[in-house]
Protein backbone atom coordinates (compact mmCIF):
# COMPACT_ATOMS: atom_id res chain seq x y z
CA UNK A 1 0.00 0.00 0.00
CA UNK A 2 1.62 3.22 -1.07
CA UNK A 3 0.91 6.73 0.10
CA UNK A 4 0.99 9.61 -2.34
CA UNK A 5 1.34 13.19 -1.22
CA UNK A 6 1.50 16.55 -2.94
CA UNK A 7 3.82 19.12 -1.40
CA UNK A 8 3.21 22.71 -2.48
CA UNK A 9 6.36 24.79 -1.88
CA UNK A 10 6.95 28.51 -1.74
CA UNK A 11 10.54 29.31 -2.63
CA UNK A 12 12.74 32.22 -1.64
CA UNK A 13 13.78 34.55 -4.44
CA UNK A 14 16.53 33.09 -6.72
CA UNK A 15 16.46 29.72 -4.99
CA UNK A 16 14.25 27.73 -7.40
CA UNK A 17 17.09 26.12 -9.36
CA UNK A 18 18.90 25.00 -6.20
CA UNK A 19 15.73 23.59 -4.66
CA UNK A 20 14.81 21.67 -7.81
CA UNK A 21 18.32 20.21 -8.00
CA UNK A 22 17.93 18.99 -4.42
CA UNK A 23 14.52 17.53 -5.24
CA UNK A 24 16.05 15.62 -8.14
CA UNK A 25 18.31 13.82 -5.64
CA UNK A 26 15.35 12.52 -3.63
CA UNK A 27 14.17 9.22 -5.04
CA UNK A 28 10.77 9.34 -3.33
CA UNK A 29 9.87 12.50 -5.28
CA UNK A 30 8.26 11.26 -8.48
CA UNK A 31 7.30 14.51 -10.19
CA UNK A 32 8.29 18.14 -9.80
CA UNK A 33 6.31 20.97 -11.37
CA UNK A 34 6.99 24.64 -11.55
CA UNK A 35 3.77 26.52 -10.80
CA UNK A 36 2.22 29.93 -11.20
CA UNK A 37 -0.01 31.18 -8.40
CA UNK A 38 0.28 31.00 -4.61
CA UNK A 39 3.08 28.42 -4.70
CA UNK A 40 6.19 28.10 -6.86
CA UNK A 41 6.85 24.37 -6.94
CA UNK A 42 4.71 21.29 -6.55
CA UNK A 43 6.26 17.89 -5.96
CA UNK A 44 4.57 14.54 -5.83
CA UNK A 45 5.97 12.10 -3.29
CA UNK A 46 5.31 8.38 -3.28
CA UNK A 47 6.23 6.37 -0.19
CA UNK A 48 5.26 3.10 1.50
CA UNK A 49 3.37 4.56 4.45
CA UNK A 50 2.78 7.74 6.42
CA UNK A 51 5.76 6.97 8.66
CA UNK A 52 7.98 7.04 5.57
CA UNK A 53 6.29 10.24 4.43
CA UNK A 54 7.23 11.86 7.71
CA UNK A 55 10.79 10.53 7.41
CA UNK A 56 11.26 11.76 3.82
CA UNK A 57 9.74 15.12 4.65
CA UNK A 58 11.58 15.73 7.90
CA UNK A 59 14.97 14.37 6.83
CA UNK A 60 15.18 15.21 3.14
CA UNK A 61 12.74 17.96 2.17
CA UNK A 62 12.36 20.14 5.24
CA UNK A 63 16.11 20.84 5.66
CA UNK A 64 16.51 22.13 2.07
CA UNK A 65 17.55 25.75 2.14
CA UNK A 66 15.55 28.05 -0.07
CA UNK A 67 12.14 26.65 0.75
CA UNK A 68 10.13 29.36 2.50
CA UNK A 69 6.92 27.46 3.16
CA UNK A 70 5.36 24.09 2.41
CA UNK A 71 1.81 22.81 2.38
CA UNK A 72 1.42 19.02 2.26
CA UNK A 73 -1.67 17.19 1.06
CA UNK A 74 -2.10 13.42 1.22
CA UNK A 75 -4.04 11.93 -1.70
CA UNK A 76 -6.92 9.86 -0.33
CA UNK A 77 -8.27 8.59 -3.62
CA UNK A 78 -7.93 9.32 -7.29
CA UNK A 79 -10.29 8.91 -10.24
CA UNK A 80 -9.16 8.78 -13.84
CA UNK A 81 -10.92 8.38 -17.15
Amino acid at each position, binding site marked *: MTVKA*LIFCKIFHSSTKRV*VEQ*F*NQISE*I*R*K*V*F*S*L*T*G*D*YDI*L*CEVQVENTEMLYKVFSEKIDPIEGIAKT*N*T*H*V*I*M*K*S*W*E*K
Partner: protein
Amino acid sequence: MQNKSILYILVANVLWSFIPTVVSDLFNEFSVVMIIFLRFSISGVIFLLLGVGLIIANNRFLNMKNIDFSLLLSYLTTKNEGFFGMRNLLYIACLGFFGITLQIIGYFMAIKTTTISFTMVGFQLSIILIASYEHGVKLERLDVFKILYLLILVFTIGIIIFVKLRESSVNVEVPILGIYYLILFSITMSFLHVALNKDTYNNKEIILMNENKYYKIARLFIKIGLIFLIGMSFLFPFLLINILIGIDDLLIKEIFLFFNEFSNIFEIMFQWETIFVIVFSTVVPFLLIFLASMYWTPYNLTYSQWSSILNIIEPIGAITFGVLFATEFFPIEYLVIIIFLLLISILFRYAHESRNKVNAYIIINKEKGLLKNLPLDLLKIEGVSKVESLVGTYDLILHVKTNSIRDIYDLVNNKINSLKGLKDVKILFLDKIKKFK
Protein backbone atom coordinates in the same frame (compact mmCIF):
# COMPACT_ATOMS: atom_id res chain seq x y z
CA MET B 1 5.58 3.77 -23.03
CA GLN B 2 5.32 7.31 -24.40
CA ASN B 3 7.04 6.45 -27.68
CA LYS B 4 5.19 3.14 -27.88
CA SER B 5 1.77 4.84 -27.77
CA ILE B 6 2.80 7.32 -30.47
CA LEU B 7 4.19 4.42 -32.51
CA TYR B 8 0.83 2.62 -32.22
CA ILE B 9 -0.96 5.64 -33.75
CA LEU B 10 1.69 5.83 -36.51
CA VAL B 11 1.39 2.12 -37.36
CA ALA B 12 -2.44 2.30 -37.32
CA ASN B 13 -2.34 5.16 -39.84
CA VAL B 14 0.11 3.27 -42.06
CA LEU B 15 -2.15 0.20 -41.98
CA TRP B 16 -5.19 2.33 -42.87
CA SER B 17 -3.25 3.81 -45.76
CA PHE B 18 -3.08 0.36 -47.43
CA ILE B 19 -6.88 0.31 -47.80
CA PRO B 20 -7.21 2.19 -51.13
CA THR B 21 -4.53 0.06 -52.83
CA VAL B 22 -6.01 -3.22 -51.62
CA VAL B 23 -9.67 -2.34 -52.25
CA SER B 24 -9.02 -0.91 -55.71
CA ASP B 25 -7.87 -4.44 -56.62
CA LEU B 26 -11.04 -5.92 -55.13
CA PHE B 27 -13.26 -3.39 -56.93
CA ASN B 28 -12.12 -4.81 -60.26
CA GLU B 29 -13.81 -8.10 -59.40
CA PHE B 30 -16.42 -7.49 -56.73
CA SER B 31 -19.04 -4.95 -55.78
CA VAL B 32 -17.93 -1.94 -53.71
CA VAL B 33 -20.97 -2.45 -51.49
CA MET B 34 -20.01 -6.09 -50.83
CA ILE B 35 -16.53 -5.05 -49.65
CA ILE B 36 -18.06 -2.41 -47.37
CA PHE B 37 -20.59 -4.90 -46.01
CA LEU B 38 -18.00 -7.63 -45.35
CA ARG B 39 -15.44 -5.25 -43.87
CA PHE B 40 -17.72 -3.66 -41.30
CA SER B 41 -20.07 -6.51 -40.46
CA ILE B 42 -17.20 -8.93 -39.78
CA SER B 43 -15.10 -6.31 -37.94
CA GLY B 44 -18.21 -5.29 -35.97
CA VAL B 45 -18.85 -8.88 -34.89
CA ILE B 46 -15.14 -9.32 -33.99
CA PHE B 47 -15.16 -6.19 -31.79
CA LEU B 48 -18.46 -7.12 -30.17
CA LEU B 49 -17.14 -10.62 -29.40
CA LEU B 50 -13.86 -9.17 -28.09
CA GLY B 51 -15.82 -6.87 -25.76
CA VAL B 52 -18.18 -9.55 -24.51
CA GLY B 53 -15.32 -12.10 -24.30
CA LEU B 54 -13.20 -9.69 -22.26
CA ILE B 55 -16.06 -9.14 -19.82
CA ILE B 56 -16.75 -12.87 -19.44
CA ALA B 57 -13.02 -13.64 -19.04
CA ASN B 58 -12.72 -10.86 -16.48
CA ASN B 59 -15.72 -12.09 -14.48
CA ARG B 60 -14.73 -15.75 -14.56
CA PHE B 61 -10.95 -15.96 -14.55
CA LEU B 62 -9.47 -12.67 -13.39
CA ASN B 63 -9.27 -11.55 -9.83
CA MET B 64 -10.76 -8.17 -10.72
CA LYS B 65 -14.02 -6.47 -9.87
CA ASN B 66 -16.90 -7.95 -11.88
CA ILE B 67 -18.14 -6.06 -14.91
CA ASP B 68 -21.90 -6.08 -14.99
CA PHE B 69 -23.55 -6.17 -18.42
CA SER B 70 -26.37 -4.03 -17.05
CA LEU B 71 -23.83 -1.21 -16.65
CA LEU B 72 -23.22 -1.30 -20.41
CA LEU B 73 -26.95 -1.20 -20.98
CA SER B 74 -27.17 1.80 -18.67
CA TYR B 75 -24.47 3.48 -20.82
CA LEU B 76 -26.59 2.91 -23.94
CA THR B 77 -29.66 4.46 -22.35
CA THR B 78 -27.84 7.38 -20.68
CA LYS B 79 -28.49 10.81 -22.20
CA ASN B 80 -25.46 12.15 -24.06
CA GLU B 81 -25.21 15.83 -23.08
CA GLY B 82 -22.34 16.32 -25.55
CA PHE B 83 -24.50 15.21 -28.50
CA PHE B 84 -27.86 17.04 -28.45
CA GLY B 85 -28.99 15.17 -25.31
CA MET B 86 -29.70 12.01 -27.32
CA ARG B 87 -29.58 8.58 -25.69
CA ASN B 88 -26.19 6.99 -26.34
CA LEU B 89 -27.77 4.24 -28.47
CA LEU B 90 -29.15 6.85 -30.86
CA TYR B 91 -25.80 8.66 -30.79
CA ILE B 92 -24.07 5.39 -31.77
CA ALA B 93 -26.63 4.92 -34.56
CA CYS B 94 -25.80 8.42 -35.90
CA LEU B 95 -22.08 7.56 -35.82
CA GLY B 96 -22.86 4.27 -37.59
CA PHE B 97 -24.91 5.82 -40.39
CA PHE B 98 -23.14 9.13 -41.01
CA GLY B 99 -19.67 8.20 -39.77
CA ILE B 100 -19.41 4.70 -41.22
CA THR B 101 -22.06 3.89 -43.85
CA LEU B 102 -22.06 7.23 -45.69
CA GLN B 103 -18.37 7.89 -45.11
CA ILE B 104 -17.23 4.56 -46.52
CA ILE B 105 -19.63 4.71 -49.45
CA GLY B 106 -18.23 8.15 -50.23
CA TYR B 107 -14.63 6.97 -49.74
CA PHE B 108 -14.84 3.75 -51.72
CA MET B 109 -17.02 5.16 -54.51
CA ALA B 110 -14.60 8.08 -54.86
CA ILE B 111 -11.74 5.57 -55.24
CA LYS B 112 -13.81 3.58 -57.73
CA THR B 113 -14.91 6.55 -59.82
CA THR B 114 -11.75 8.67 -59.63
CA THR B 115 -8.28 7.66 -58.48
CA ILE B 116 -6.55 6.98 -55.16
CA SER B 117 -4.55 10.22 -55.24
CA PHE B 118 -7.62 12.30 -56.10
CA THR B 119 -9.59 10.64 -53.28
CA MET B 120 -6.86 11.62 -50.82
CA VAL B 121 -7.94 15.25 -51.35
CA GLY B 122 -10.88 14.19 -49.14
CA PHE B 123 -8.54 13.74 -46.16
CA GLN B 124 -7.06 17.20 -46.56
CA LEU B 125 -10.52 18.72 -47.05
CA SER B 126 -11.71 16.94 -43.92
CA ILE B 127 -8.80 18.34 -41.87
CA ILE B 128 -9.63 21.84 -43.13
CA LEU B 129 -13.32 21.32 -42.23
CA ILE B 130 -12.38 20.12 -38.72
CA ALA B 131 -10.05 23.11 -38.29
CA SER B 132 -12.90 25.45 -39.32
CA TYR B 133 -15.17 23.74 -36.79
CA GLU B 134 -12.57 24.02 -34.04
CA HIS B 135 -11.96 27.66 -34.85
CA GLY B 136 -15.61 28.60 -35.27
CA VAL B 137 -17.32 26.50 -32.62
CA LYS B 138 -14.62 25.65 -30.09
CA LEU B 139 -12.91 29.04 -30.62
CA GLU B 140 -9.49 27.45 -31.07
CA ARG B 141 -6.82 30.00 -31.85
CA LEU B 142 -5.47 30.00 -35.41
CA ASP B 143 -1.80 30.67 -34.80
CA VAL B 144 0.89 31.00 -37.46
CA PHE B 145 1.72 27.26 -37.37
CA LYS B 146 -1.91 26.20 -37.85
CA ILE B 147 -2.31 28.69 -40.71
CA LEU B 148 0.88 27.37 -42.37
CA TYR B 149 -0.36 23.81 -41.81
CA LEU B 150 -3.70 24.57 -43.47
CA LEU B 151 -2.01 26.48 -46.32
CA ILE B 152 0.17 23.44 -47.06
CA LEU B 153 -2.94 21.24 -47.17
CA VAL B 154 -4.66 23.67 -49.56
CA PHE B 155 -1.50 23.79 -51.68
CA THR B 156 -1.24 19.97 -51.89
CA ILE B 157 -4.94 19.81 -52.83
CA GLY B 158 -4.11 22.31 -55.59
CA ILE B 159 -1.22 20.15 -56.84
CA ILE B 160 -3.35 16.97 -56.91
CA ILE B 161 -6.19 18.74 -58.75
CA PHE B 162 -3.71 20.32 -61.19
CA VAL B 163 -2.16 16.90 -61.95
CA LYS B 164 -5.58 15.31 -62.39
CA LEU B 165 -6.83 18.13 -64.65
CA ARG B 166 -3.70 17.85 -66.77
CA GLU B 167 -4.17 14.10 -66.94
CA SER B 168 -7.90 14.39 -67.73
CA SER B 169 -7.20 16.65 -70.71
CA VAL B 170 -5.21 13.85 -72.33
CA ASN B 171 -6.63 10.78 -70.68
CA VAL B 172 -9.87 10.24 -68.80
CA GLU B 173 -12.21 12.79 -67.25
CA VAL B 174 -12.84 12.98 -63.53
CA PRO B 175 -16.60 12.37 -63.26
CA ILE B 176 -18.72 14.93 -61.45
CA LEU B 177 -20.14 12.14 -59.29
CA GLY B 178 -16.59 11.33 -58.13
CA ILE B 179 -16.36 14.86 -56.74
CA TYR B 180 -19.77 14.41 -55.08
CA TYR B 181 -18.53 11.22 -53.38
CA LEU B 182 -15.33 12.98 -52.36
CA ILE B 183 -17.27 15.79 -50.69
CA LEU B 184 -19.58 13.26 -49.01
CA PHE B 185 -16.49 11.44 -47.71
CA SER B 186 -14.87 14.64 -46.37
CA ILE B 187 -17.99 15.86 -44.58
CA THR B 188 -18.88 12.49 -43.02
CA MET B 189 -15.27 11.84 -42.00
CA SER B 190 -15.12 15.24 -40.31
CA PHE B 191 -18.37 14.40 -38.53
CA LEU B 192 -16.93 11.07 -37.32
CA HIS B 193 -13.77 12.77 -36.08
CA VAL B 194 -15.64 15.51 -34.23
CA ALA B 195 -18.42 13.31 -32.79
CA LEU B 196 -16.59 10.07 -31.97
CA ASN B 197 -15.71 10.97 -28.39
CA LYS B 198 -18.75 13.04 -27.47
CA ASP B 199 -20.07 10.47 -25.01
CA THR B 200 -19.18 10.76 -21.35
CA TYR B 201 -18.96 8.10 -18.69
CA ASN B 202 -21.72 8.00 -16.08
CA ASN B 203 -20.85 7.95 -12.35
CA LYS B 204 -21.17 4.17 -11.98
CA GLU B 205 -18.90 3.66 -15.00
CA ILE B 206 -16.23 6.01 -13.61
CA ILE B 207 -16.24 4.15 -10.28
CA LEU B 208 -15.91 0.77 -12.03
CA MET B 209 -13.24 2.05 -14.44
CA ASN B 210 -11.10 3.05 -11.49
CA GLU B 211 -11.51 -0.36 -9.89
CA ASN B 212 -11.18 -2.40 -13.07
CA LYS B 213 -9.03 -1.14 -15.94
CA TYR B 214 -10.57 -3.63 -18.38
CA TYR B 215 -14.00 -1.98 -18.32
CA LYS B 216 -12.80 0.93 -20.45
CA ILE B 217 -11.42 -1.29 -23.21
CA ALA B 218 -14.43 -3.66 -23.14
CA ARG B 219 -16.72 -0.63 -23.49
CA LEU B 220 -14.61 0.67 -26.40
CA PHE B 221 -14.81 -2.71 -28.15
CA ILE B 222 -18.57 -2.88 -27.72
CA LYS B 223 -19.05 0.74 -28.77
CA ILE B 224 -17.05 0.37 -32.00
CA GLY B 225 -18.65 -3.04 -32.68
CA LEU B 226 -22.11 -1.47 -32.33
CA ILE B 227 -21.15 1.51 -34.50
CA PHE B 228 -20.02 -0.86 -37.27
CA LEU B 229 -22.99 -3.22 -37.00
CA ILE B 230 -25.67 -0.53 -36.69
CA GLY B 231 -23.97 1.26 -39.60
CA MET B 232 -24.28 -1.90 -41.68
CA SER B 233 -27.92 -2.41 -40.67
CA PHE B 234 -28.59 1.05 -42.18
CA LEU B 235 -26.86 -0.05 -45.37
CA PHE B 236 -29.86 -2.04 -46.68
CA PRO B 237 -32.53 0.69 -46.40
CA PHE B 238 -29.98 3.16 -47.80
CA LEU B 239 -29.37 0.91 -50.83
CA LEU B 240 -33.10 0.45 -51.43
CA ILE B 241 -33.70 4.21 -51.27
CA ASN B 242 -30.86 4.67 -53.78
CA ILE B 243 -32.45 2.16 -56.16
CA LEU B 244 -35.80 3.96 -55.85
CA ILE B 245 -34.38 7.47 -56.29
CA GLY B 246 -31.65 6.42 -58.72
CA ILE B 247 -29.14 9.26 -58.35
CA ASP B 248 -26.10 7.42 -59.65
CA ASP B 249 -26.27 4.62 -62.21
CA LEU B 250 -22.87 3.30 -61.19
CA LEU B 251 -23.91 2.97 -57.54
CA ILE B 252 -27.14 1.23 -58.60
CA LYS B 253 -25.07 -1.18 -60.71
CA GLU B 254 -22.89 -1.84 -57.67
CA ILE B 255 -25.99 -2.44 -55.52
CA PHE B 256 -27.45 -5.01 -57.95
CA LEU B 257 -24.02 -6.65 -58.21
CA PHE B 258 -23.92 -6.79 -54.39
CA PHE B 259 -27.25 -8.65 -54.21
CA ASN B 260 -26.16 -11.02 -57.01
CA GLU B 261 -22.87 -11.75 -55.22
CA PHE B 262 -24.57 -12.94 -52.04
CA SER B 263 -24.36 -16.55 -53.22
CA ASN B 264 -20.55 -16.17 -53.45
CA ILE B 265 -20.15 -14.29 -50.18
CA PHE B 266 -17.81 -16.86 -48.61
CA GLU B 267 -15.60 -16.95 -51.67
CA ILE B 268 -15.24 -13.15 -51.53
CA MET B 269 -14.74 -13.25 -47.76
CA PHE B 270 -11.73 -15.56 -48.10
CA GLN B 271 -9.95 -13.52 -50.77
CA TRP B 272 -6.62 -12.46 -49.28
CA GLU B 273 -7.40 -8.81 -50.04
CA THR B 274 -10.69 -9.00 -48.09
CA ILE B 275 -8.96 -10.68 -45.15
CA PHE B 276 -6.21 -8.05 -45.28
CA VAL B 277 -8.72 -5.18 -45.26
CA ILE B 278 -10.68 -6.69 -42.35
CA VAL B 279 -7.78 -7.86 -40.19
CA PHE B 280 -4.83 -5.58 -40.94
CA SER B 281 -6.62 -2.44 -42.06
CA THR B 282 -9.58 -2.47 -39.67
CA VAL B 283 -9.29 -4.69 -36.59
CA VAL B 284 -5.53 -4.30 -35.91
CA PRO B 285 -5.36 -0.49 -36.39
CA PHE B 286 -8.39 0.04 -34.16
CA LEU B 287 -6.84 -2.22 -31.53
CA LEU B 288 -3.63 -0.19 -31.71
CA ILE B 289 -5.57 3.05 -31.39
CA PHE B 290 -7.48 1.69 -28.37
CA LEU B 291 -4.25 0.57 -26.73
CA ALA B 292 -2.64 3.95 -27.39
CA SER B 293 -5.58 5.87 -25.92
CA MET B 294 -5.95 3.51 -22.96
CA TYR B 295 -2.30 3.53 -21.88
CA TRP B 296 -1.61 7.11 -22.89
CA THR B 297 0.95 8.56 -20.51
CA PRO B 298 2.89 11.24 -22.40
CA TYR B 299 2.95 14.45 -20.51
CA ASN B 300 3.56 16.82 -23.40
CA LEU B 301 0.46 16.30 -25.55
CA THR B 302 -2.82 14.46 -25.27
CA TYR B 303 -3.75 11.36 -27.27
CA SER B 304 -6.19 13.32 -29.47
CA GLN B 305 -3.51 15.92 -30.22
CA TRP B 306 -1.00 13.28 -31.35
CA SER B 307 -3.77 11.54 -33.27
CA SER B 308 -4.52 14.80 -35.14
CA ILE B 309 -0.83 15.35 -35.84
CA LEU B 310 -0.31 11.89 -37.31
CA ASN B 311 -3.55 11.45 -39.26
CA ILE B 312 -1.93 13.02 -42.32
CA ILE B 313 0.20 9.85 -42.55
CA GLU B 314 -2.82 8.03 -43.98
CA PRO B 315 -3.14 10.09 -47.22
CA ILE B 316 0.68 10.20 -47.59
CA GLY B 317 0.84 6.41 -47.35
CA ALA B 318 -2.23 5.89 -49.53
CA ILE B 319 -0.86 7.95 -52.44
CA THR B 320 2.59 6.35 -52.12
CA PHE B 321 1.28 2.77 -51.92
CA GLY B 322 -1.18 3.54 -54.73
CA VAL B 323 1.68 4.54 -57.01
CA LEU B 324 3.97 1.71 -55.84
CA PHE B 325 1.54 -1.22 -55.73
CA ALA B 326 -1.59 -0.25 -57.67
CA THR B 327 -2.03 0.89 -61.24
CA GLU B 328 -2.12 4.47 -60.06
CA PHE B 329 -0.38 7.02 -62.26
CA PHE B 330 1.02 10.08 -60.57
CA PRO B 331 4.05 12.04 -61.85
CA ILE B 332 6.94 11.18 -59.56
CA GLU B 333 8.16 14.79 -59.24
CA TYR B 334 4.75 15.95 -58.00
CA LEU B 335 4.48 12.92 -55.72
CA VAL B 336 7.80 13.79 -54.05
CA ILE B 337 6.70 17.41 -53.60
CA ILE B 338 3.38 16.33 -52.04
CA ILE B 339 5.01 13.85 -49.65
CA PHE B 340 7.62 16.42 -48.65
CA LEU B 341 5.00 19.12 -48.03
CA LEU B 342 2.73 16.83 -46.05
CA LEU B 343 5.66 15.69 -43.89
CA ILE B 344 6.51 19.34 -43.25
CA SER B 345 2.86 19.92 -42.35
CA ILE B 346 3.25 17.35 -39.54
CA LEU B 347 5.97 19.55 -38.01
CA PHE B 348 3.76 22.65 -38.23
CA ARG B 349 0.86 20.79 -36.64
CA TYR B 350 3.13 19.53 -33.84
CA ALA B 351 4.41 23.07 -33.28
CA HIS B 352 0.82 24.37 -33.15
CA GLU B 353 -0.35 21.72 -30.69
CA SER B 354 2.65 21.94 -28.37
CA ARG B 355 2.75 25.74 -28.42
CA ASN B 356 -0.87 26.17 -27.42
CA LYS B 357 -1.32 23.28 -25.01
CA VAL B 358 -1.97 24.17 -21.42
CA ASN B 359 -1.28 21.94 -18.45
CA ALA B 360 -2.74 23.05 -15.17
CA TYR B 361 -3.83 21.85 -11.77
CA ILE B 362 -7.05 23.24 -10.37
CA ILE B 363 -7.35 23.11 -6.63
CA ILE B 364 -10.78 23.22 -5.07
CA ASN B 365 -12.32 23.71 -1.66
CA LYS B 366 -15.80 22.27 -1.50
CA GLU B 367 -18.73 22.37 0.84
CA LYS B 368 -19.30 19.54 3.31
CA GLY B 369 -21.05 16.35 2.19
CA LEU B 370 -20.20 16.37 -1.52
CA LEU B 371 -17.22 14.03 -1.70
CA LYS B 372 -19.20 11.10 -3.09
CA ASN B 373 -20.41 12.57 -6.39
CA LEU B 374 -18.56 15.86 -6.94
CA PRO B 375 -15.23 14.23 -8.07
CA LEU B 376 -17.14 12.10 -10.58
CA ASP B 377 -19.06 15.13 -11.92
CA LEU B 378 -15.78 17.03 -12.27
CA LEU B 379 -14.13 14.12 -14.09
CA LYS B 380 -16.88 14.13 -16.73
CA ILE B 381 -15.80 17.60 -17.88
CA GLU B 382 -13.82 17.56 -21.14
CA GLY B 383 -10.18 18.43 -20.43
CA VAL B 384 -10.14 17.05 -16.89
CA SER B 385 -8.08 13.86 -16.98
CA LYS B 386 -7.78 13.05 -13.28
CA VAL B 387 -9.36 14.08 -9.98
CA GLU B 388 -7.70 13.47 -6.63
CA SER B 389 -9.28 13.80 -3.23
CA LEU B 390 -6.91 15.39 -0.72
CA VAL B 391 -6.38 15.68 3.01
CA GLY B 392 -5.10 19.18 3.74
CA THR B 393 -5.96 22.80 3.02
CA TYR B 394 -7.63 21.89 -0.27
CA ASP B 395 -10.17 19.14 -0.86
CA LEU B 396 -9.71 18.26 -4.51
CA ILE B 397 -7.08 18.66 -7.20
CA LEU B 398 -7.93 18.36 -10.89
CA HIS B 399 -5.37 17.49 -13.57
CA VAL B 400 -6.28 19.52 -16.62
CA LYS B 401 -4.94 19.47 -20.17
CA THR B 402 -6.44 21.77 -22.78
CA ASN B 403 -5.56 22.91 -26.27
CA SER B 404 -5.47 26.61 -25.41
CA ILE B 405 -5.57 29.07 -22.54
CA ARG B 406 -9.07 30.08 -23.68
CA ASP B 407 -10.23 26.49 -23.19
CA ILE B 408 -9.05 26.53 -19.59
CA TYR B 409 -10.99 29.69 -18.74
CA ASP B 410 -14.07 28.22 -20.44
CA LEU B 411 -13.56 25.04 -18.42
CA VAL B 412 -13.29 26.91 -15.11
CA ASN B 413 -15.82 29.70 -15.67
CA ASN B 414 -18.54 27.82 -17.52
CA LYS B 415 -18.16 24.18 -16.55
CA ILE B 416 -16.51 23.87 -13.13
CA ASN B 417 -18.14 26.97 -11.62
CA SER B 418 -21.58 25.82 -12.79
CA LEU B 419 -21.35 22.88 -10.38
CA LYS B 420 -22.89 23.41 -6.96
CA GLY B 421 -20.96 23.19 -3.72
CA LEU B 422 -17.61 24.71 -4.74
CA LYS B 423 -16.25 27.27 -2.29
CA ASP B 424 -12.86 28.17 -3.75
CA VAL B 425 -11.36 27.34 -7.15
CA LYS B 426 -7.76 28.17 -7.99
CA ILE B 427 -5.86 27.54 -11.23
CA LEU B 428 -2.19 26.62 -10.94
CA PHE B 429 -0.50 26.63 -14.33
CA LEU B 430 2.25 24.07 -14.68
CA ASP B 431 5.09 25.88 -16.35
CA LYS B 432 7.65 23.21 -16.68
CA ILE B 433 8.24 19.68 -15.66
CA LYS B 434 11.45 19.10 -13.78
CA LYS B 435 11.33 15.45 -12.98
CA PHE B 436 9.12 12.63 -14.19
CA LYS B 437 9.59 8.96 -13.40
